[in-house]
């Protein structure tokens, strides 16, 4: 005879029919896998190409403009300095905000006086998927 607790558990859980996997599950998985693969690699590659092209164009335009302006030597040096620092920083910040912030904090150290703690954003992050050292360690 069935245990009354078992009967009650079955009746309670049975209020909702157990779900069944859809017929397209494998197709959907493969679609998601395929969508992630080129997206990750392709986006990074496209960003790098865009960064490189922007860099070259900005550098060419800066040389052209700065060479023609009737500025004093000091102003010209300042303009070159700004162009050389700000342009890569702006593009880097768009791609790697944490590294750009880390770089700025690093540059600001002498201005702020004392040594500062390493900014969290610039610290290397532990990989999200831990390396299991033994067979007993479960994958996440």
């Amino acid at each position: 005879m069935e245990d009354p607790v078992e009967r009650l558990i079955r009746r309670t859980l049975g209020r909702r029919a157990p779900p069944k996997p859809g017929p397209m599950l494998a197709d959907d998985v493969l679609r998601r896998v395929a969508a992630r693969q080129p997206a990750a690699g392709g986006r990074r590659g496209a960003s790098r190409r865009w960064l490189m092209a922007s860099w070259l164009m900005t550098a060419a335009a800066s040389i052209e403009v700065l060479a023609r302006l009737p500025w004093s030597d000091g102003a010209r040096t300042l303009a070159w300095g700004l162009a050389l620092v700000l342009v890569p920083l702006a593009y880097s910040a768009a791609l790697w905000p944490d590294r750009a912030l880390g770089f700025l904090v690093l540059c600001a150290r002498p201005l702020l006086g004392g040594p500062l703690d390493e900014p969290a954003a610039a610290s290397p992050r532990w990989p999200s998927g831990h390396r299991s050292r033994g067979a007993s360690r479960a994958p996440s």
Partner: protein
Amino acid sequence: MGSPPGTDDEAVVAAYRRTRDPDLFRLLVERHQERVFRLVASILGPFADLDAEELTQEVFVRVHERLDTFRGEARFSTWLYRLTYNRTIDRRRRARLRTEHVPSESLEESATSTGPLEAALDRERERVVARLIEGLPELYRSVVHMHYWMDQSIDEIAETLGIPAGTVKSYLSRARQRLREQARVQGIQGLE
């Protein structure tokens, strides 16, 4: 094209790593999708506000990402089900606030009750039991769902979780005992 269906999982994984042939990964998914889905659904349970199909897909995407870390020390299926278990438990924990209270619409009319009063009592009793099941430790709850909700046999549960059948029986027995005690505390009679 992938290996013939008779080839073991570990060989398929190795071939997939070499060739990156999507049909090989499809073969792995098709072999295990049913069981992974049932495991995910069992861990989520009937009252969780999460979609088992969606989560099963997520698990397989995660498996794909982590496939290079599979070192063949255990069977692929063991590795896969463990990953499924951990991933689903993690998602369920994050969704806990939404599933804390068993939705009342999930416990509608009781088929066994004879009158309105008895129906109301049955509903209340089942609502209490549903909450008690939800409150069981993760492993007990999952095993209860697998056995009593998804109708999986003890051996099947044991194989999925990678534990002996005796341990599964013991989990079920302890879960029932715990439910019996807590139901008594909640004033539910007739469960002895």
